[in-house]
């Protein structure tokens, strides 16, 4: 219980700071809109083909926009040596990391919830009847992005070129989760029923989330403190 309480305190601090400044969410949303606009030049936005590749487009937007949130997660603590103060606080590295994960997750899911209807309007895509299943896929995929992104954000926070290093390191790592999320979202948006073969993608997403959450919690103390 203490673990959760400390983590929630860190998450609440991050969310409060974000609600006051809105800098990350605004940047992330604007970036997502720019990507959605650029896609319209890459292919015919009114074609039927869009429904087939909608899952991929959607997750590219989520992954690119999400990186902006993740990049700022630890970088915002550099000012006035706040990161050192957080590490010296009674909260353990795992609690600090988990709190950051919760805050990033909330922000990412919020950005995704805004992007999804905009994407549907821009590209004339009907949202699936099984919207709850699509939402579940979004939650599972976003948690994978958040956990890996937050840990790597902690790893790269003190590096020069950190804005370049984070995407270079996390995108290859995220590919199994992105593959699963893209496949399932594509099927749902295209209105195709999910068969027994597709269950493996759900299992992959859940396994990915669990494995990397455990691994990140085990290693974050090493990353932050040494």
């Amino acid at each position, binding site marked *: 219980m203490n673990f959760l309480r400390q983590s929630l305190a860190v998450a609440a601090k991050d969310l409060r700071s974000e609600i006051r400044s809105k800098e990350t969410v605004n940047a992330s949303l604007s970036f997502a809109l720019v990507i959605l606009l650029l896609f319209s030049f890459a292919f015919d936005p009114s074609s039927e083909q869009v429904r087939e590749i909608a899952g991929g487009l959607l997750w590219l937007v989520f992954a690119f926009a999400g990186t902006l949130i993740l990049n700022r997660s630890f970088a915002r603590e550099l000012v006035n040596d706040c990161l050192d103060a957080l590490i010296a606080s009674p909260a353990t590295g795992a609690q600090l990391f988990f709190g950051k994960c919760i805050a990033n997750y909330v922000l990412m899911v919020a950005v995704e919830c805004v992007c999804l209807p905009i994407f549907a309007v821009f590209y004339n895509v009907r949202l699936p009847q099984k919207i709850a299943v699509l939402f579940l896929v979004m939650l599972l995929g976003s948690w994978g992005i958040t956990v890996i992104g937050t840990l790597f954000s902690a*790893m790269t926070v003190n590096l020069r070129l950190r804005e370049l290093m984070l995407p270079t390191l996390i995108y*290859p*790592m995220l*590919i*199994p989760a992105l593959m699963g999320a893209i496949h399932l979202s594509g099927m749902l948006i295209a209105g195709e029923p999910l068969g027994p073969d597709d269950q493996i993608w759900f299992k992959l997403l859940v396994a990915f989330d669990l494995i990397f959450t455990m691994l990140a919690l085990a290693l974050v103390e090493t990353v932050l403190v040494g």
Partner: protein
Amino acid sequence: MRQKIVIALALVAGLILAWNLHTMFLQVPDEKNQGAIFRIFYFHFPSAITSFVGFYIGMFCGVGYLVKKDLRLDSIAASINEVSLAFATIALVTGSIWGRIIWGIWWAWDPRITSYFVCWLMYVGYLMLRRAIDDPTTRARLGAVLSIFAAVDIMIVWKSIEWWRTQHPGPVLEIRGGGGMAPGMEAPLWWNFLALLLLFTALVLIRMRQESMKCEIDSLRRYAHAF
């Protein structure tokens, strides 16, 4: 002493490779369905397996560093991962050449190939991360964490052939449940494996020496700056 071991390993590897090339091109006949290009398998398979094994040994050395905090273990990990990355590149390139002849395309986005490429990208990231960090202990620590994450992802690579349908050829060797190779065709593969393994070891030893010299130069430079 180490210099002599490196030279001996490289010499033995070179001799086996030369003898093996003679066997492969002049004694082993063309494969019935694939023709002459099947010989690329003699390099593709050992390079892929050596790089896989290397990445895991690199990860264990990284874990060893995290436990013992001995920078020598970090230089072993870095050297092994770097040489493994070179071998992974050989596997990717030879696989691509084989695909061009047999499938008619240089690159098939088959899950196993894609996953292997992902793995390759992760280790390119590993080297980039190491280059971006000046402090040796931070470099060793973060390098070890990244290699643990990457090694876990390799497991997904390894299992992906069972999880997803694939156009990548199924297992060839009997030990992996395949039909096996014709008599006389399999022996050069294992000899090539041995030669590449010896070459791998020689390259790792050379790289380790460079890494320890780099550490020494860095510490001397810091010592000089202190005065």
